[in-house]
């Protein structure tokens, strides 16, 4: 559903979501960090045990998401290197975006 909040800053992060279709806006303390589209991931803090969401993700359009809990993620990543590389690439892209955001404000 458009405008629905998928994950809010400070909430427990226990599920990793893959965007199947649609667009999701990422904000931190109200500032826009970026927009994730199909193929992107949200809820990446679920990769760290007992972590909370660091950013707020909100649907900009109707979105379709696939959800993986930590056990499913551990299993898939040990069995499927291409899946792992996809998640790593999504994380690396996000990290570059966020690093650029930080660099631009220093």
């Amino acid at each position, binding site marked *: 559903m458009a405008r629905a909040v998928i994950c809010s800053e400070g909430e427990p992060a226990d599920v990793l979501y893959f965007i199947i279709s649609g667009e999701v806006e990422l904000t*931190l*303390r109200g500032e826009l960090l970026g927009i994730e589209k199909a193929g992107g991931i949200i809820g990446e803090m679920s990769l760290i045990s007992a972590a909370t969401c660091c950013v707020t993700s909100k649907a900009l359009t109707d979105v379709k998401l696939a959800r993986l809990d930590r056990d499913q993620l*551990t299993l898939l990543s040990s069995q499927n290197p291409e899946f792992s590389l996809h998640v790593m690439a999504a*994380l690396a892209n996000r990290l570059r975006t966020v690093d650029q955001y930080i660099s631009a404000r220093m």
Partner: protein
Amino acid sequence: MDLLEIFKDSNELIAYPAGAVIIMEGKEGSHMYVVIQGEVDISLKGRVIAKASRGDIVGEMALINSEIRSATVTATTDCTLAVIDQASFQSLLRHVPDFSMHVMNVLAGRLKLAYEIIAD
């Protein structure tokens, strides 16, 4: 996971003196490293954003989806690093079951630090 156990006897070990720049932001690179001994700083435009020591990895972004280094890595003590090229990285992904989750966890940890810097 214990990468030290896998790489401590590697024949691809490089020693850097304290102060040496191991990875330079903006330059091309095609290797990642496992810190075997010593400590390094990870910095963005001169600001230290993370530290890495024994068993930690640095430079992993270059093997995932771009060869342009996103941050600078500097030796803060004399240190020894094991070099991992693309072929070794692919082999680790395929043959060491915990390795993928370990790299994802490291990336998520770096993101967490970056988010915390923005939130401050």
